[in-house]
């Protein structure tokens, strides 16, 4: 059976060229970059090259890039690291209601430690209003963290505007750019961010590696204590193959991103149109324009997401859902809820995230299978007959 992967927001396949670049660093150039001998120095050279490429890619300086184990660590370090370093300045943090759990959970943790957190609401499309952020600022605000683009609904947030507000007020601003870095142009100066998280496996690199950009002069309290790697900002022997892979992935993104954006936008729009015109009682979640090039998120009335997902999986098509039935909490997606979507429609949501390996045939095939699956499930649904007949 043909397998179609439409869950690239969860993770992307490692590009073969990335893998090839990484392989020598397992058993040929295996030195520890902290060692002074030639073995160590060749590894050190490789990670510094990756750091240079990554820094250039986001408009940063080399020494402003810290390699981490991934997006979650970068977000945790940014939020808790700033909170603890600036505790004497204040205890208030501003974030949004639609952040990834890797931002929300550190915030919940800090609330238990005596910090106060304001969670800014979003509109029906998932957009944060910069004016709301401005209004939430108090004399005690030490950090603002708003994601660059949402992982579920793909809405791209007005980061540059929020960045300007933060800069004017002298408050540190962090953005979780895990979904955008490598997919749409990002520049830390244009966005006016002080901290910026990205992850390797979301941009065709390996899992277990990410970066945290920390603007020069921004102080954080590290939470990995040990050796003095990463200028004392993150102890632990470098994940050399991972870091090399991250560098290669970014290098490829630099060359191929523009073309990929164009191709994905075309396929995305075809898919959205195909679903909205081909399936009755379907709606688009997220913003119609301010949207990641690869994100399709729809709600299908009268059917539940997990049963659609499993049926699609049986046809070889991989996607995800915001339905409660796939979460251990049995609560539907906090993101869809924040956009004002009813529980029923959140239960019936499907997310398809396209990637550079997605072909037009993949989309066509999915568009032929999806209505059949929905028809089958609606025939089984006690809601469909009542509302529709």
């Amino acid at each position: 059976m043909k397998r179609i992967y439409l869950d690239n927001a969860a993770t992307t396949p490692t590009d073969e060229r990335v893998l090839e670049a990484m392989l020598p660093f397992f058993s040929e150039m295996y030195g520890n970059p902290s060692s002074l001998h030639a073995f160590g120095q060749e590894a050190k050279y490789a990670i510094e090259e990756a750091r240079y490429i990554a820094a250039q890619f986001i408009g940063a300086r080399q020494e402003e890039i810290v390699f981490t184990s991934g997006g979650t660590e970068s977000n945790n370090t940014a939020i808790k690291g700033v909170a603890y370093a600036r505790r004497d300045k204040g205890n208030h943090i501003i974030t949004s209601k639609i952040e990834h759990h890797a931002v929300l959970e550190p915030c919940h943790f800090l609330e238990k430690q005596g910090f106060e957190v304001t969670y800014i609401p979003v509109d029906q499309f998932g957009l944060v209003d910069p004016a709301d952020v401005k209004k939430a600022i108090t004399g005690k605000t030490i950090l603002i963290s708003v994601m660059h683009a949402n992982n579920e609904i793909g809405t791209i947030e007005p980061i540059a505007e929020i960045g300007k507000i933060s800069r004017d007020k002298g408050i540190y601003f962090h953005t979780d750019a895990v979904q955008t870095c490598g997919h749409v142009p990002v520049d830390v100066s244009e966005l006016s961010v002080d901290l910026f998280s990205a992850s390797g496996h979301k941009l065709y690199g390996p899992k277990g590696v990410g970066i945290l950009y920390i603007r020069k002069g921004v102080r954080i309290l590290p939470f990995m204590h040990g050796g003095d790697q990463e200028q004392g900002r993150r102890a632990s022997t470098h994940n050399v193959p991972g870091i090399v892979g991250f560098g290669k992935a970014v290098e490829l993104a630099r060359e191929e991103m523009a073309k990929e954006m164009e191709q994905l936008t075309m396929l995305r729009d075809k898919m959205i149109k195909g679903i909205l015109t081909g399936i009755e009682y379907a709606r688009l979640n997220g913003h119609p324009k301010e949207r990641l090039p690869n994100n399709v998120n729809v709600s299908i009335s009268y059917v539940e997401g997990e049963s659609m997902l499993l049926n699609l999986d049986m046809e070889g098509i991989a996607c995800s859902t915001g339905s409660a039935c796939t979460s251990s909490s049995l609560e539907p997606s906090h993101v869809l809820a924040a956009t004002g979507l009813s529980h029923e429609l959140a239960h019936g949501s499907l997310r398809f995230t396209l990637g550079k390996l997605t072909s037009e045939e993949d989309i066509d095939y999915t568009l032929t299978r999806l209505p059949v699956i929905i028809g089958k499930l609606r025939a089984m649904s006690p809601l469909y007959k009542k509302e529709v007949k």
Partner: protein
Amino acid sequence: MEYSEKVMEHFRNPRNVGEIENPDGVGRVGNPVCGDIMELYIKVKDGVITDAKFKTFGCGAAIATSSMVTELVKNRTIDEALKISNRAVTEALGGLPPIKMHCSVLAEGALKKALDDYRGRISVLTSGEQAKKLLTAVNSGV
């Protein structure tokens, strides 16, 4: 989260999907807010469940438990059907992931409601018939 082969089999090919016209009992449980709704229809003849059908809005486990419960009640007496627990449904499916156990509870709930509905109709019917008999007796001067 992983489903057993039996759950997936019932999810792929759910048994007894649909409604029964003029059912002898209907059980409806759940709501769209919690994400699962089940409707169970039964047909009863001489105290034995001769047919059962369902309609369900819900996840894989909700559909599989609905399907299984219709299979389990067919050709059972009302008393036997009353003894079918959520555990029996789960066991027949080769187990459910812990967070999906509530689906089997819902299936048991739908069955109990359908049986209650049936017994309610019968008692109305029975009392109606008894009244008729009594009336006939009175009229005939017994």
